[in-house]
């Protein structure tokens, strides 16, 4: 039975880190990278974009849309099943 997960499309990613900011805002009530359950690596010149999730990710619990997905403007992150 596929479970809900967050999918990532690296070619769409622009490296803005809004996903980390949004996640941290919910985890910490403030903005930053420390405390984010999503960890981004982005290096446009090297053609590198990667998203990993720590065990702290709970898909934002009761929210319909995880915050990282909501704030991903280029739609590199999406809620899906795998």
């Amino acid at each position, binding site marked *: 039975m596929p479970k809900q997960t967050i999918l990532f499309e*690296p*070619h769409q*990613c*622009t*490296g*803005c*880190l*809004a996903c980390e*900011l*949004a996640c*941290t*805002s919910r985890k*910490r*009530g*403030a*903005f*930053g*990278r*420390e*405390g984010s359950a999503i960890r981004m*690596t982005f290096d*446009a*010149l090297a*053609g590198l*974009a990667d998203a990993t999730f720590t065990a702290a990710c709970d898909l934002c619990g009761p929210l319909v849309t995880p915050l990282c997905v909501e*704030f991903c*403007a*280029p739609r590199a992150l999406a809620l899906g099943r795998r």
Partner: protein
Amino acid sequence: MSGGWTGKTLEVNLTTRTCRVEPTDHAGALVGGRGWAARRLFDEVAPGTDPLGPENLLIFSTGPLTGTLFPAAGRLCVTTKSAVTGGYGSANGGGHFAPELKYAGFDHVVVRGAADTPVYLALVGDRVELRDARALWGLTTWETEDTIRREFGDPAVRVASIGPAGERAARLACIIIDKGRSASWSGCGGIMGAKNLKAIAARGSGHAAVARFDDFMDEARHAWQWVRRTKAMQQMGRYGTHGISGMDGLLTGKPQGVKNLSEGQWDGDKTIRLKQVVFDERFGLNRVACFGCPTPCAQACRVTSGPLDGSRCLAVHANTVRAFGPNLDIDCAETIIRATQLVGEFGMDLDATTAAIAWAYEAWERGLLTASDTEGLTLGWGQAAALPELLRQMAYREGFGALLSDGVAEAARRLGRSSDSFAMSIKGMGLNDKGLREYVGWALGIATSPRGAGHLNGAPLCEDRRFPRELSEKRYGIPTAFEPASYDDKEALVLLFERLKAVIDSLGLCYFQSYWYDEEIYGLEEHARALSAATGVDADARALERIGERIHNIEKAFNTLHAGFGRSADVPPERFFSEPVKTGKFAGAVLDRWRWNDLLTRYYAAHGWDPASGWQTRGGLEGLGLGDVAETLARHGRLIQD
């Protein structure tokens, strides 16, 4: 509960190699960022200070919204006495550095003095250190960032650094962030190099806190959705400034800066070769956004074949492609990517760089420079082969290129031969822009920009909208906002955007996400609400507008005090008055000197300045709560009594 600001400013004395953390002084009540730094610079840097000397300050600033989720809250403000104009210096860069300063715990970093050997400032892991940079000295900005990250074993360290140009105190040197973002203006890279400061590295575990979190998230979310649904921002994210205004525009016909700004339209076939879609198709990598920004205005590019194989750059913007394309009559896309890479690695302000190179190319065309002057380099319109070597020489102060290392005004002064007649500069700052003949308000904003020749102050973008007069009245309070050739009331537009930009730069935000870029986007009303929620201190749009006017007046006062700029400095170069656009829909457009002077008079009056000289008055400054600024000006005989 407070928030927004961290409440801490780092005072760095490079001469004594000491660092002190001080509480951030908000007495000036100028929001933060650029406003705070302008006040600090005015109060502490005395007239007669050598910009490249140890007494100059180099101030790195964030704003109260920096590092938050409000859209595009990642800009860095750099404030200093300009090494180019001798007056007010200000640069502003994107990327991710400013938020990291915030997360490291600082609102501002104020650097004074000069180290006796190269150092870099490390704000990593909750520590503040001045580290030995002798092993970094000589590296490009890209190598510097890579090396520092390796030293800390952390790829998330953010670096603002200078390259070989800054190390040699070249006045067209800039500060590079993230390998492709830049705090460019005012020779700030050269000032940093003259202080022997190679880089600042930041990596903080802290956060940007806000006073009323739920309210702030509402504002941020609202603004975020607003930007995403705005058509103009969607287009910006898709095509960048390159596509929208860099090469002829999306729908064609937009003005270009051609051959040292001597013409306003380029050859059609050459234009097509440098279109954004061409770059996207042949060289495009991921589109790139700055910190917390929904609009990826840049696209990384890489050349994968041909003699320039391997060339790559983080972003080709409008000014980039025009700088190395039409302004030099070069239509080779690979050359533009290579040149963009080099100015990034060497740390050179590309606007000042193209102004100097285009001048040299024109001097060559006029026979004022020959192969014996250039030591064998072949210049002249369309000459792409010389460009990489010329850039290298400019950065390293070697060979013929050394003539250009301090910018076009200095180069023309040294060459003589009446070459200043085609030096594109305002207040000594190199000009790389288009549309000055075609859009009168745009020209006024550029000519009166306090930092010299900048379109990112009061210059409006609205003049090319095709909307009826009634909308102009309703939106801007004047009938002519959408009439590019009209001189009527244009001063009102410039004042409006001067104030908006001053506030935006003080909040830490990017200018594109505002109604400067498109009337549909938000502005001071929304900024005020976000600022109130962030800091817990209520602000409204009118209060912010007044703060913007105060900031602009402090910068103006600095210019008057240090450089004596008046009416004669607030004017575009001669060719915009004497050489009309030759072809295209703006054929015949040229500035009119009599009407320009009348417009300047009205602009000064609108600011409450003396209409004749353009200098400030006691009454005007006291009315803004800047009586002490008036006193300082008066003491130096630079205040108009009224």
